[in-house]
């Protein structure tokens, strides 16, 4: 726009248009960069009461501008020539000029910059029209309807404002320029005071008035929520002088969302300046203002929500990479902190709502000292239980409990907050530093696993369901995180238990397998033994008859030998007899083997009775005399009894004793003694014989094992069977060359 104007007023073309410019009824002035007049048309010169020649070359501001606005206009001129922004801002401007006879004439200017072809600014061209008369008409003669029409139009201007600050400026501009009020200001309600935000006209001598002040028309307007008019301020008891020399004041409250947001205040140095019509106009403006502010606040709130959404999204992204529950909860408190709370404390609680360790207190905005303080002065779980009880239901906002300090119950129940508030007095609006705001972290089953408590809202305002809603999201998330952590822990524990169990199972399987193998081996051995038993029994029986025949035949042979005594040589006879005798001996020995075999094959049945051990041993020793050089010591207390089958146990002891005798061919000592221990009777047979080589110890109880040339290898095997049939054991301890000890253990029957 300004560029095109420059094209029109190219300096070379000026001369050709001068005549035309002289004809129009508008003032046209060209200034150089120093503010000296390069050109003025004759209309302009006439208006000022000079000739054109008298004005050209003179400084415009020093000579033709009233001193009251001279500096202001010089500054504006500097701005205009400095930047394109300047010309944009001051493209239209109204200011008075000074005529030759000292009269001020109000001119409405349109200004453009003069630029050379290479873009250099070399001056300004301003066209102005005399608006002195219109101005007067505007302020005095404009009808109420005109002003109403203006206000309707002005509403859209207000609504186009981007900030509350802009609204204030529009309001005071509208009041002073369009509605013609001399002095106008916008006063905002801030917590406990009324603060002047902007003004037009004279500068006020005070900036703020306390809301609890007894006087003050603005205060009255806030309290009554109604328009206050004073048309004779000096005689008004409520008036406080805010602007020097004011005689009339009109105060209209701006009510946003049912709360007095501020006051539109117009003043005049004239007495009785304001009519009812003025009051109605300002009230309409106040209504438009309230709408505009409400819209801006909604927008701010929308932006805040947008920020919260962004924060939530960031939080969600952050949280994905974190598995540790405390680290996750830390993200939660950070997110809440970023939503505008200077202190956030989240504590993990056990079933009694107690905190178990300092690590379970997760905070944002707290120093290490404060965290320590919190841990050392932690509120007991019982108190927290009370705080979630129905008594506190009336303080509930969603999942949160908001306890305003001014509440009588709260004031009675709670001591002053333990930590100092992070908010300065000025930062708090309706939030009190002692206010409490907390919420339980609840699992779906209703179990409380933690507590969130937040403090020091950045906006200084009390929480509402609306402002707490996004926090609830985090609250639920935190509870879920804790639940998940618990589940994960339980899962891990279960996994551990499972792997432990698996290990145990494996061990058990190993153990069982081993037992099974042993059992199998035992079974095989037993089967083998059983087979041996059966074979032994049948072999035993089958051998008896041939043995019998040999015996009979050797008897017959002996008789024949006897009968031939007189026909054969004595020597030959003796030889024959000795041969027959040896046959008989071998038959006897074979007979013993057959008996052993049949013993082994026999089913052993046990009938235990109390048997005197001494008498059994003595009986055995009387029928099996100890060979010479062998000393037998029996060291058994008299009356010592064992629970055993007498016949069978006698065979066992006989076998062991005879074996011991055979083990001491060079002589020695057999010591027999006994003791009771742990419901077992132990009978020891200790010899000082040859001993048993280590490799044979395991085998000596196996059937058919023998080291003797004349052994059946069944004696000890039978002993073992008999002892085991008593539910006892037979063991041997032996050292080669020193002797062996056989230990028979039998259970003692109660």
């Amino acid at each position: 726009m300004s560029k095109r104007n420059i094209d029109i007023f190219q300096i070379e073309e000026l001369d050709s248009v001068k005549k035309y410019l002289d004809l129009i009824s508008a003032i046209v002035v060209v200034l150089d960069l120093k503010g000296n007049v390069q050109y003025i048309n004759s209309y302009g010169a006439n208006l000022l009461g000079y000739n054109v020649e008298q004005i050209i070359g003179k400084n415009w501001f020093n000579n033709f501008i009233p001193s009251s606005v001279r500096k202001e206009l010089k500054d504006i001129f500097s701005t205009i020539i400095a930047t394109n922004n300047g010309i944009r801002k001051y493209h239209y401007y109204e200011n008075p000029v000074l005529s030759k006879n000292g009269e001020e004439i109000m001119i409405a200017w349109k200004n453009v910059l003069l630029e050379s072809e290479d873009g250099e600014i070399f001056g300004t061209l301003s066209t102005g029209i005399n608006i002195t008369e219109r101005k007067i008409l505007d302020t005095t003669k404009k009808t109420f309807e005109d002003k109403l029409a203006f206000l309707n139009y002005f509403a859209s201007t207000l609504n186009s404002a981007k900030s509350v600050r802009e609204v204030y400026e529009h309001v005071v501009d509208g009041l002073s320029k369009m509605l013609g009020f001399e002095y106008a200001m916008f006063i905002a309600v801030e917590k406990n005071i009324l603060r002047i935000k902007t003004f037009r006209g004279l500068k006020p001598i005070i900036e703020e008035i306390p809301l609890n002040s007894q006087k003050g028309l603005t205060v009255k307007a806030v309290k009554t929520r109604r328009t206050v008019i004073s048309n004779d301020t000096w005689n008004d008891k409520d008036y406080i002088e805010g602007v020097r020399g004011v005689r009339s004041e009109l105060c209209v409250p701006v009510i946003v969302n049912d709360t007095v947001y501020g006051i539109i205040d117009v003043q005049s140095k004239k007495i009785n300046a304001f009519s009812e019509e003025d009051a109605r106009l300002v009230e309409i403006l106040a209504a438009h203002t309230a709408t505009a502010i409400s819209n801006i606040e909604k927008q701010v709130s929308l932006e805040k929500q947008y920020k919260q959404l962004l924060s939530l999204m960031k939080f969600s992204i952050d949280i994905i990479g974190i598995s540790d529950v405390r680290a996750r909860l830390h993200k939660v408190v950070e997110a809440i902190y970023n939503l505008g709370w200077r202190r956030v404390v989240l504590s993990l609680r056990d079933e009694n709502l107690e905190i178990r360790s300092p690590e379970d207190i997760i905070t944002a905005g707290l120093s290490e000292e404060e965290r320590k303080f919190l841990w050392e002065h932690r509120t007991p779980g019982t108190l927290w239980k009370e705080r979630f009880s129905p008594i506190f239901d009336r303080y509930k906002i969603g999942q949160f409990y908001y306890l305003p300090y001014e509440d009588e119950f709260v004031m009675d129940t709670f001591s002053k907050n333990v930590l100092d508030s992070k908010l300065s007095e000025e930062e708090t609006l309706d939030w009190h530093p002692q206010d409490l705001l907390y919420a339980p972290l609840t699992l779906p089953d209703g179990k409380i696993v933690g507590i969130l408590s937040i403090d020091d809202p950045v906006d200084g305002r009390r929480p509402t369901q609306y402002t707490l809603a996004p926090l609830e999201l985090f609250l639920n998330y935190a509870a879920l995180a804790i639940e998940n952590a618990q589940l994960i822990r339980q899962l891990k524990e279960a996994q551990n238990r499972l792997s432990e169990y698996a290990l145990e199972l494996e061990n058990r399987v190993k153990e069982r397998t081993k037992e099974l193998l042993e059992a199998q081996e035992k079974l095989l051995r037993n089967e083998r033994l059983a087979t041996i038993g059966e074979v032994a029994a049948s072999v035993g029986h089958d051998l008896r008859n041939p043995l019998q025949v040999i015996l009979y035949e050797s008897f017959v042979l002996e008789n024949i030998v006897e009968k031939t005594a007189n026909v054969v040589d004595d020597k030959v006879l003796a030889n024959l007899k000795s041969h027959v005798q040896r046959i008989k001996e071998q038959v006897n020995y074979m007979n013993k083997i057959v008996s052993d075999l049949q013993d082994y094959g026999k089913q052993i049945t046990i009938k235990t009775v109390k048997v005197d051990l001494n008498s059994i041993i003595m009986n055995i020793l009387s029928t099996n005399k100890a060979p010479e050089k062998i000393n037998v010591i029996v060291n058994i207390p008299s009356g010592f009894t064992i629970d055993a089958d007498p016949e069978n146990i006698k065979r066992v002891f006989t076998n062991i004793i005879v074996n011991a005798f055979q083990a001491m061919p060079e002589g020695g000592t057999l010591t027999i003694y006994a003791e009771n221990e742990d419901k077992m009777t132990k009978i020891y047979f200790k010899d000082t014989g040859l001993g048993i080589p280590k490799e044979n110890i395991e085998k000596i109880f196996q059937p058919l094992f023998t080291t003797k040339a004349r052994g059946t290898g069944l004696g000890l095997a039978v002993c073992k069977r008999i002892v085991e049939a008593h539910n006892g054991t037979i063991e041997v301890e032996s050292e080669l060359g020193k002797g062996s000890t056989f230990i028979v253990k039998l259970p003692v029957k109660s």
Partner: protein
Amino acid sequence: MGVGEKPRILVVDDDLDILQSLKEILETRGYHVEVAENAQKGLDVARKKFFNLAILDIKLPDMEGTELLAKIHKEKPEIMKIMLTGYPSLENAVRALNLGADAYLMKPVNPEELLKVVEEKLKEQREAETMTEEKVAEWIEKRIQKLEQSK
């Protein structure tokens, strides 16, 4: 029993070699011997002929030696009976004696011992026969005394 008449012995055993050897031994000692290789034959012979003594094996193919013993004892209580058993056990011995055996010997039995027992039992039998009348009188006398005592 007439003078000069050999004592008659029945041997029952399923082992033919044993029967042969024992028959020879016993005959050498002047006994009349008859043999049977199973219980039924033994029983049949015992029923037809007179015997002073029977030597029975406890294990026979067709019945238990003890069963044969019981049958002979029932039909011919006067025959002296000697049981031969392969496996020594108290139970067997008691059972045999209860069933009427007069002696109980274990296989393999020493022939001298067997002959000694055979002689003893035959002597017992002879004594029992000669003293029967005296004994009956004595027995009756004892019974009367006991009865009087119990009154």
